[in-house]
């Protein structure tokens, strides 16, 4: 039983219970120092991650900016891809990623509407969610194999923009669904109830109340899906992209060039890997700028909308 032996004073509060203050004082200090050391390790880890991004972007920018010029962006490659520009690759990447979004966006939104507005929590929803999560985890090269087996060979679309866009669309579907569902769920239930109370039916409520309120989040999901589709290489290797096409695509059944695949080809398969180094850096810089630009737009847009809502 702990009992005060003498009244504690303000100057010396410890003596009331503890006659040996010294070890305790050191213990406290050791714990505090330990905390400082470990916390600075945590901070270092965070800094390392941020630095990793900065270093990659720095190397691409420092070595790539020399290659960037008006000719580089608006001319096709010349002299068996050792000179000239990357216009066909830029056009190809835009075709593929926009095509993927045109296919995946409506399906993604409709799936998200079902999961957030119609489905009741239970086994069925769990199975659907499991399917989406597992689709998100399928390796990109397996999507490529699937695209080759199904779109290129079985449906006979050949190596074409259509096959590539369908493959990329299947791959971006989970990204769009999860981002959209999250933004639909963040719409307060009172909005839905107010709309229903005014006599609107479910579809009217979704179209006129829920979707408009969730629009910023839905647009963010579209931008993120677009950037994901633009940066992927493995799914288009067997389904859409080829080493070199002399002309710009004129139909959705044409083969095309694409930025990520162009980097890979120049860096590994060309006969003059060293001589085209500046072209590789330049192409990588364009791709990084495109993808990070899209992502930054999404992040800034989201934070601005959040501030306005607050």
């Amino acid at each position, binding site marked *: 039983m702990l009992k005060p032996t003498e009244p504690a004073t303000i100057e010396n509060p410890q003596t009331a219970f503890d006659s040996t203050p010294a070890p305790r004082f050191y213990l406290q200090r050791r714990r505090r120092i330990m905390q400082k050391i470990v916390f600075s*390790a945590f*901070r270092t880890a965070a800094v390392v991650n941020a630095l990793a991004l900065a270093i990659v972007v720095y190397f691409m920018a420092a070595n790539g900016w020399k290659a960037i010029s008006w000719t580089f962006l608006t001319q096709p490659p010349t002299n068996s891809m050792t000179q000239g520009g990357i216009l066909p690759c830029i056009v190809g990447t835009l075709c593929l990623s926009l095509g993927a979004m045109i296919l995946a966006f409506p399906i993604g939104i*409709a799936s998200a509407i079902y999961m957030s507005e119609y*489905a009741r929590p239970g086994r069925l929803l769990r199975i659907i969610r499991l399917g989406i999560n597992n689709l998100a985890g399928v390796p990109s090269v*397996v999507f490529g194999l699937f695209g080759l087996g199904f779109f290129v060979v079985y449906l006979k679309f050949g190596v074409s923009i259509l096959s590539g866009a369908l493959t990329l669309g299947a791959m971006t579907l989970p990204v769009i669904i999860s981002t959209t569902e999250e933004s639909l769920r963040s719409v307060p239930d009172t909005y839905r109830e107010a709309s229903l109370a005014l006599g609107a039916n479910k579809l009217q409520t979704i179209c006129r109340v829920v979707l408009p309120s969730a629009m910023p989040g839905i647009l963010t999901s579209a931008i993120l899906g677009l950037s994901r589709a633009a940066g992927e290489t493995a799914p288009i290797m067997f389904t859409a992209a080829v080493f070199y096409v002399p002309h710009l695509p004129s139909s959705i059944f044409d083969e095309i060039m694409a930025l990520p695949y162009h980097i890979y080809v120049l860096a590994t398969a060309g006969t003059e890997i060293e001589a085209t180094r500046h072209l590789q850096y330049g192409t990588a810089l364009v791709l990084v700028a495109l993808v990070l630009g899209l992502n930054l737009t999404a992040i800034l847009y989201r934070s601005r909308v959040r501030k306005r809502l607050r």
Partner: protein
Amino acid sequence: MNNNLRKIQDRILKHFFFFTALTSTAVLFMIAFFLFKEGIPIFEKVSIQDFILGKYWYPTSDPPDFGIFALIVASLSVTLLSAAIAIPLGVMTAIYLAEIASYRLREIVKPVVELLAALPSVVIGFFGMVVVAPFLQNAFNLATGLNLFNAALMLAFMSIPTICSISEDAIYSVPHSLREASLALGATHLETIIRVILPASISGISTAVILGMSRAIGETMVVLMVAGGAAMIPLSIFDPVRPLPASIAAEMAEAPFRGDHYFALFATGIVLFLFTLLFNLIADHVAHKYKQVGEASL
């Protein structure tokens, strides 16, 4: 009358949305179907056991050898080594963001980690080839900088964002009352983090780690460009290797259509698909079984 029509309309719409929501699951099944359709024929030539445990992968020699054991070992070793780098870095960053960093810093660092996830894999592979490989070659005096260690390092930075953001959500959602109770008992912030917050969020962190590893094992461009490409069982971390996705991506263009090599690559795809499916199912199981439910999670 009008009311009845509305009800029918609502029901049709519900079914329409339901069937659209099934698309993802349908795609998943179709992926499995086409992998098996194009991959099964190889097992008429090679038994499953020889395919998976065979040590020699010489698909173009005569007679060809289709044994992917070295590729599986390569994939697993690259993934484990990258996990050894990514787990500490990712979880520590998550703790820093959720517990220690000020609100303003958090608002800056979080998007940076998200952007790291957005970097195209081919760019990270290119960076590994032209920057990290020469550096490793000089620093450790190696025959080639394109090796297991380089690939693992690049993969680590691809899986950190996954590990970090899911762990951070889990740590952030630990109830405040737990934290306050621990602090009130006289524990320091660090002791609170290690003894209370981490145990309470361990299910979320495990999910994060498994999903991060699943991303690493399936990642293609990085291992294709920086792993070195030698189909041998690695003896040191500086040996060149040829993981499963690299083998598929590198050889598919040259494999004769519907030849044995083509079927073998699809069968390799089946193995890879099953690996990631397993990882994802485990992650889902952990997330559901040990769900974080308020105070009951300790």
